[in-house]
């Protein structure tokens, strides 16, 4: 399971994607993924907000995630 990272999320993790295959507890939902990130990289807790996109759409905390999904971390957007 690979997570795409953008903006400050990439800076916090130090790379542009995060491979979760080595983690013992794989997240099954967006909420679990955010929990995992906040634990592994405490700087995520300092952000104004943190969203997750599953297959290019904003996903709720309850949304299930699986091996085939394109999963991306969306830190606070600032386009325009």
């Amino acid at each position, binding site marked *: 399971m690979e997570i*795409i990272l*953008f*903006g*400050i999320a990439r*800076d916090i993790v130090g790379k542009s994607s995060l491979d979760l295959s080595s983690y013992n507890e794989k997240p099954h939902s967006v909420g679990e993924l955010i929990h995992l990130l906040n634990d592994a990289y405490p700087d995520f807790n*300092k*952000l*104004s907000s943190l969203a997750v*996109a599953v297959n*290019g*759409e*904003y996903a709720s905390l309850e949304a299930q995630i699986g091996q085939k999904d394109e999963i*991306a971390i*969306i*830190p*606070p*957007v*600032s*386009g*325009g």
Partner: protein
Amino acid sequence: MEKPIIEIVETIDTTQVYDELSDAKSGGICVFIGTVRDFTDNESVISLEFEAYKSMALKEMAKIVDQASAKWPLNKVVIRHAVGLKKVKEPVVIIGVSTAHRDACFTACRYMIDTLKETVPIWKKEMFKNKSVWVSAHP
């Protein structure tokens, strides 16, 4: 509405938007251009760097156009965002709408830039002399 122009590009050409929006059924065209300003909170900005989750950003931009065209009778729409390094005065986003009457083009254009800033996965880093900051990342 005709097929909208929705793009993420390296460089915005501000001279082409009028031709893209010109329309026999429209009496009004409203265009908003976001540009790089030299100061933020009294600190001198050297440049901005924009990064996009391109596939998702294009989908979110298309949703904004759909929402706007459901609210107002739009004839033509352009929504184009730049990525990469942008210096002071350079355009970073251009949003244009043509409508029969001017009220709708102003209101729809304003709605689209406001919503773009809230929902489209694009990120901006401000480069100052001695530091760089991801805008809005922290409270």
